[in-house]
């Protein structure tokens, strides 16, 4: 079973990430929500419309970026856009052409409008696929691996654009990815799925805290001696101090980072310590995710 008892509720204007390894059920979930396949059991509403009884309404209001660009390689860039614009009901010819021009200009594809899609680079195809997804100004976007297979520069461009979709245009976005950077950077909330089931859901920060523990404070000094370590250990909310004498730094586990950091720095300075840097050490979402998925699979 690709998806098993998965329950998701996404607020309007939210960027919600579905994060999971290959075969976790992300694409199947997106396909069901886009009315491309039917669930064998259960139900879902997209924009208030039931996917089983009102699929045409759902399709009309959703823009889907599929795992593959799904572009007609023998048609030109403009022919692809024009076909999908009409398919999504943009019947006014002038309005349609204006919208196509706006999107192709934005994605720097207008100069290539008469080129066959087969001649475009992978990054350009992905941009065109996103332009196609947006052609009918959908309020809900389902993006399946938008940066997959792209070079870092193209991936960053796509990531920046997706970030702007929610902030600028208030689109509701369901983002499917196994790139943790995408989830961490773009999503308001993230659901980690594995084997078709929800493992955990929350903001990226919450997931980091809940899975890999709270952030720690790293204080690097010019010279570290035992008296300074003892000063820190005596502070009320400090739970543990890890010392790296060679690097002259302390990694300090505290209950509340924002409350305790000024006190730690102040006490160390007053005790004669010369502070070179103070950093917050936060386990990355990647570490949190790997820890969770490994635990699930074992």
């Amino acid at each position: 079973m690709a998806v098993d008892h998965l329950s998701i509720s996404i607020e309007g204007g939210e960027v919600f990430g579905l994060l999971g390894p290959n075969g976790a059920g992300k694409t199947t979930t997106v396909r069901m929500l886009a009315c491309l396949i039917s669930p064998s059991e259960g139900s879902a509403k997209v924009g208030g419309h039931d996917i089983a009884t009102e699929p045409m309404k759902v399709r009309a209001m959703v823009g889907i970026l599929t795992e593959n660009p799904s572009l007609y390689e023998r048609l030109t860039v403009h022919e692809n856009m024009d076909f999908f614009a009409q398919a999504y009901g943009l019947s006014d010819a002038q309005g349609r052409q204006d919208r196509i021009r706006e999107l192709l200009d934005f994605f720097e594809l207008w100069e290539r409008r008469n080129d066959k899609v087969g001649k475009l680079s992978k990054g350009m195809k992905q941009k065109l696929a996103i332009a196609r997804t947006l052609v009918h100004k959908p309020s809900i976007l389902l993006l399946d691996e938008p940066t997959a297979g792209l070079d870092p520069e193209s991936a960053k461009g796509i990531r920046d654009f997706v970030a702007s979709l929610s902030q600028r245009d208030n689109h509701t976005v369901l983002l499917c990815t196994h790139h943790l950077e995408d989830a961490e950077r773009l999503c308001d909330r993230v659901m980690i799925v594995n084997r078709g089931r929800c493992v955990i859901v929350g903001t990226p920060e919450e997931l980091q805290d809940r899975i890999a523990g709270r952030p720690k404070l790293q204080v690097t000094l010019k010279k570290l001696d035992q008296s300074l370590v003892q000063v820190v250990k005596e502070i009320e909310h400090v739970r543990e101090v890890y010392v790296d004498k060679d690097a002259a730094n302390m990694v300090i586990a505290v209950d509340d980072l924002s409350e305790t950091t000024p006190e730690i720095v102040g006490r160390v300075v007053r005790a004669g310590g010369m502070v070179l840097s103070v950093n917050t050490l936060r386990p990355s979402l990647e570490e949190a995710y790997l820890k969770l998925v490994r635990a699930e699979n074992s």
Partner: protein
Amino acid sequence: MRAHMVMLVFRKDWCEIKRNWQIFFPIVVVPFLISVLLPTLIIVTPSLSSISGPPMENSTAMMRNLPSQVRDELVGMNAWQALVYVMSLYFFAPFFLIIPLMASSVIASDSFAGEKERKTIEAILATPISDSELLLGKMLVSFIPSMIVTAASFAIYTTVIDVFSFEIFDGRLLLPNPVWLMLIFGVAPTIALAGIGLTVMISARVKGVREAQQISSILLLPILMLVLGQISGAIFLGPTVVAILIAAFVVVDLIVFYIGLRSFKREEILPRLS
């Protein structure tokens, strides 16, 4: 159902087909062979061997088994004229039923299976084009080109035959005649529609174009039986047989369309790919 959506799917697919020589080549070349080369070879070869004498000598099984009404048409002709007459008007007739079926089968096999192979199927299925609009658009793009090719082949064939018959029959033109008009504008469209309906349904269910073509090639069998029937003299495509064929295929078309529209569900296409 919205006609402009059907036409939208038609135009998009036609645009792709025009630029795909793997599809375009067979639907142009095979009809050319049937409408130009085959009659030229058959007509020119006997003329080189200088066949003469009464019509029924030097004859094949088909000639020996001619129905009486055809025999009546041959009265007063020499052997060569009779052979050219029977070959031109009767022997080649079933081949012109292969043209629409072959042409439409090549395109119809590509309809959904081609989109699956080229990984474009998800985007089109995600659009608010209804199932019936999608299905009819795909059928139309197989039907219209195949009918154009069939009509063009018939026009070329008529020209080739009349060029020869003008000389052989002292100024008489053999084509077009009512039976052939019924064949081209009655049997060919109905047989093509039945083939297209079945092939598109097959194309929606299989994973690739080759698989769709292999399965749909079975649909050529009844036509090949007609060809063999003609050669053996068992069947003759006279007005009655042609009228029966039209009526039979209209019924088949209605059944195929009914089943096709009822059974086509886009949500079942993607799960079959995995």
